[in-house]
């Protein structure tokens, strides 16, 4: 931009008349002014949303990055810590563990419900407009609308030593396997995962169903005529059609695994030991309990970046050919 003003000397001394380039530049500038003027109402309309987003999301986001380079207890003046907080993040098992746990939760929060969602959707689609199909669509979605806190409370009770899960297991003769699911090192994380899976199945099912209803029924008939079984039929007809929805389901559920907080806060508080500690909860503890604001912020930055790293490639995958 600034070059167009500073080169006066040479420009004037040159013999060439106002050439096409000059003309073009002026035109461009005029176009820009026009664009701004016609664009002004649009900008004004975006402004309030942008203002809220800027002040209450982008500003704290920037502050998170800022805090992460300091050592601060939230009360006295902070001291510059450079990358210390990040170094500790990568070397301290207490901080690395939660990240690994969150990654492991992806299996339960995302993979399991997606699989169940696909199966449920395939069954429901076949039933067409039957009553059972309609009811099951509603029922399976219920866990999605209630507060996660409530889901956590329900399941904590179900998974307790005297809870329904152990009760059922005793009835079917699995006495030997009953345990306090959320209090056992080997089962606490999967048990928390079950809660997440329970919550997410409905969403996945609904997304898959939406994708499947777009498929031309004649394709299924054709597949059947070719002698395809339900599995072949699913792989060759259904799956390609629901790719986009599948991608969305995976993205949403993966994010829900990485940012899990409510369920764990209620059911295990990260324990036993730190076997169910996740980044969200660790950030909360560090910031408001141990008052290591800098360390909490570094973990928050890491979590934000982690979500982006995991989600961006998934996003590209789902969009590449379906959008063209």
């Amino acid at each position, binding site marked *: 931009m600034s070059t167009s003003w500073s080169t006066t000397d040479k420009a004037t001394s040159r013999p060439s008349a106002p050439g096409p380039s000059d003309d073009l530049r002026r035109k461009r500038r005029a176009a820009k002014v026009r664009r701004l003027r016609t664009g002004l109402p649009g900008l004004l309309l975006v402004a309030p949303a942008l203002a809220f987003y800027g002040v209450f999301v982008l500003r704290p986001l920037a502050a998170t990055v800022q805090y992460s380079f300091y050592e601060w207890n939230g*009360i*006295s*003046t902070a001291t510059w810590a450079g990358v210390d907080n990040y170094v500790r993040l990568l070397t301290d098992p207490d901080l690395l563990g939660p990240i690994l746990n969150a990654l492991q939760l992806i299996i339960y929060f995302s993979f399991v419900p997606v699989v169940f969602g696909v199966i449920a959707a395939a069954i429901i689609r076949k039933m067409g407009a039957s009553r059972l199909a309609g009811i099951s669509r509603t029922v399976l979605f219920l866990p999605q609308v209630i507060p996660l806190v409530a889901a956590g409370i329900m399941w904590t009770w179900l998974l307790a*030593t005297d809870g329904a899960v152990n009760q059922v297991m005793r009835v079917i003769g699995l006495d030997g396997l009953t345990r306090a699911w959320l*209090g056992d090192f080997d089962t606490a994380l999967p048990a928390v995962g079950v809660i997440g899976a329970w919550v997410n199945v409905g969403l996945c099912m609904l997304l898959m169903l939406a994708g499947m209803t777009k498929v031309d029924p004649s394709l299924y008939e054709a597949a059947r005529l070719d002698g395809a079984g339900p599995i072949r039929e699913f792989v060759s007809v259904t799956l390609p059609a629901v790719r986009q929805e599948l991608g969305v389901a995976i993205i949403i559920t993966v994010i829900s695994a990485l940012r899990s907080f409510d369920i764990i806060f209620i059911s295990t508080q990260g324990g*036993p030991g730190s076997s169910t500690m996740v980044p969200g909860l660790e950030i909360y503890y560090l910031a*408001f*309990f141990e008052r290591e604001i800098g360390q909490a912020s570094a973990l928050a930055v890491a979590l934000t970046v982690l979500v982006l790293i995991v989600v961006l490639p998934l996003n590209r995958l789902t969009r590449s050919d379906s959008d063209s």
Partner: protein
Amino acid sequence: MRSAALGAIGLLALAACSPPGGDEEPEETSAPTTSATTSASGEISCGTEEVTVEAYVETGFPVFAELAAEFESQHPNVTFNIREDQFAVITQNAPRILADSETDIMRLPQMSELASDGLLLDLDPYAEAFGWDQWPSSQLEQMRVDDEGRRGSGPLYAMGLNYSMTGVFYNVELAEQIGMTEPPATLDEFDAYLQAAADEGLTPLNQFNGGATGGLAFPLQALMASYGDPSEINSWVYQQEGANIDTESNLAAAQHLNGWIESGYFADDINAIDYAQMMARFIEGDSVFIFTGDWESGNLDTQMPGNAGFFLMPPLEEGGQLGAMSAPLTYGVSANAANPDCAATFLDWVATDETARTIAVEIGGSHPMGPADAFMPELDESSVTAQTLAAGATVAENNGTMDFIANATGSIYAQSWTPQLQNMVAGQQTPEGLLETVQSDYLEQIGE
């Protein structure tokens, strides 16, 4: 993508500007201190105008609410607005509540950081005005914090509603069933009873150890007192120079505890049991012994009258040093309190008023604070309340009181003891590793 990069640069640019928290430091730390002495009339009281005292207390301990109700009826202009949470929640919320809300009086978790961060009101002016400094000094010791965050000396930052003491409660019927007619005199005898209970198919011991509350710290500390010197544990809890939890005698205690775990003396699911569940099961007769404190005495006298007994953790050899974890039920006044005088008046009243002392004993189960010769309510000799009060006197005579090892720093309980003890139950931590880890966390937390 380009805009994302630009955004990132913007964030970094912001990160480089002035450090957070710089501008608001002074006002928070200097405000309190003098309010007690500046009361116009010189008399500290709740005055005569309508006052609402904001209180934040622990769920499951009705003693505060009972005391508050009695105080309200004696002082009609005072109303208590009580909010309750479980102790673990209070622990997490404490710094924020004290810094950013108008709570006058609250149940305190470990307080050294709260005090050194200037969040608590220095109660010394009140102690002087009310004559608390004439009481046996050991009562207030645990609530004094010096400028380095060490407890034991320095300004007074909290006050007790009473001081509680811990030990072993047992179910009398079940104890008879395993042949225990009187409390064990040595640790060996106690071990034998535990084994006998296991042989009978009973659950010998139950203890809460789930969630954020590692209750195995109770038996661990009791064992530490059997094997070692209670005063060494105190100096560790008070953050005295060079104090170490990782000693030979403590290791022996941790190994003994691990032995109990390995022998299957504890209920299988202790890592999932919370405090209330432990109590509910004990009252239902599901376990022979539990480790807890005299704050349950009143409750047990109502829920299982005549069927609950108490003894102090036995020493290694008969007649040896007795130790017990004993701590005031600490309540602090916020440095930002709107009604500090009234809060302090309440705390003084709790220790001196006869009705209040009766409530402290009958509902609270523990010995009230106050002068040594102060009023004590009459008690039924056979009640477990009477037993715990008597045991408390014994411990005091023996100089066996210790502060709770979970009170050494603000986060030692949640961050170290609890997860490490849960690990040990699951066989994922050794006694050696337990003490080593806790000691290194401790050093890190006190900044050495």
